[in-house]
């Protein structure tokens, strides 16, 4: 499930994880069986865009539009998504 080509494949947030804003903690979180991951602002911006099937190019494109000032964005996104893939936070969507 976690083995797919990040550069070419469509993927989305793993439905086993619940992504949401937590008012009490003032951050976005990923919830899973008996646990919680607090997300940084940039991680949340990326995962926010993975709630529907998407691709890395699409995520980078959307973020470039939203944050035109940001530098080295493509690399940061790639790095984060590679990690998210490893953790199975994102899964491949078959066409």
């Amino acid at each position, binding site marked *: 499930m976690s083995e797919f080509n990040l550069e070419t494949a469509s993927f989305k947030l793993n439905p086993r994880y*619940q992504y949401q804003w*937590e008012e*009490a903690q003032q951050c976005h979180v990923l*919830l*899973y*069986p008996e646990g*919680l991951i607090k997300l940084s602002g940039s991680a949340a911006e990326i995962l926010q865009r993975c709630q529907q099937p998407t691709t890395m190019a699409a995520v980078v494109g959307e973020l470039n539009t939203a944050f035109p000032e940001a530098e080295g964005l493509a690399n940061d996104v790639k790095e984060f998504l590679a990690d998210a893939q490893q953790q199975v936070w994102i899964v491949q969507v078959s066409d």
Partner: protein
Amino acid sequence: MDKTTSHIPMWLLAELTFACPVQCSYCSNPLELSASRKNELSTEEWIRVMRQARKLGAVQLGFSGGEPLVRTDLEELVVEAKSLGYYINLITSSIGLTAEKITTLKEAGLGHIQISFQGSNRESNQLLGGTDSFDHKVAMTKEVIKQELALGLNFVLHRQNLHQVEEFLTMAQSLGAEFVELANCQYYGWGLHNREHLLPSQEQLIDAERVTNEFREKYKGDMDIFFVAPDYYDDRPKKCSNGWGTTFMTVNPEGEVLPCQAAKVIPGLEFPNVRDNDLKDIWHNSDLFNRFRGTDWMTEPCKSCPEKEIDLGGCRCQALMLTGDATNADPVCSLSPHHDEVLRITAKAQRPYEEEETQKLVFRNPGNSKKIRAEKSELTE
């Protein structure tokens, strides 16, 4: 005085009922089982509790018991919990579960089911749990996996089934379980009553951990195995529920709010009830939640101990049960002046396991509860 704490009760454990079809001798529920369910919180009361806890920042919700599937309003509670934004865990024996119910609960928003096994095969599961439910547990395990709901298998360990770890892990692996918890039972409630016949020997533990490590190595990436050792064998105690009044809130079937599931054993504590108070007030201002919060309540040797922030003095219930005073250091700690008591108990457990011992277990059921109560009142008369 306003005692507002910065801690957030991230976990709400909703013990929906004490009723349970299984009769586990290691159950942490109180010995005084209420035979009647008439005092249980209603659906509306549970919904109010879930709303109030969510407002305080609770995100993880566990439906447990007893057996939560006994409640006919479970689906309704799951729907409400989901709409409030909880991640919902169901902690069950699987008795009462069907393929259709799994579908309904999943659609209602359930995230995770934890199914407990009492033995690794039909005979032993029946002997140790007091129900003929092994085949059903296996069928439901397969069904949860088939319906792609997150699943955890929980095998509760003690001296009478530690030798079955290999058989259990083999089964878990063949069923395709991704997460397995091997939890040595703790000694509260019925578990304390049966401790002599539940506490394993060191040799049994070493064997079970060796087998566990072999499976971990072999099925790395496919099956995660979590092993919880009985803390009587440690040098240092475990924190109480990640720290008293820091993370957990348990609401029992009759609405009492507890910092941990076992806290009812501590005398002199008053348990606030959701029927009388708002959870926010209970969490921040109640004497109960402030009683052992932080480190101010400590006595020596904890008070001046450089490690006091690490374990917060350990378990208050264990301190009470083994030393007679809940403000003492948890005697599991080798620095406790009462540590000898733990050594005396574990020394007695260094005998080989024998099958006949099973007959000495007192199973959790209303009949035995009544019998124990009668014996206790005879002693005090």
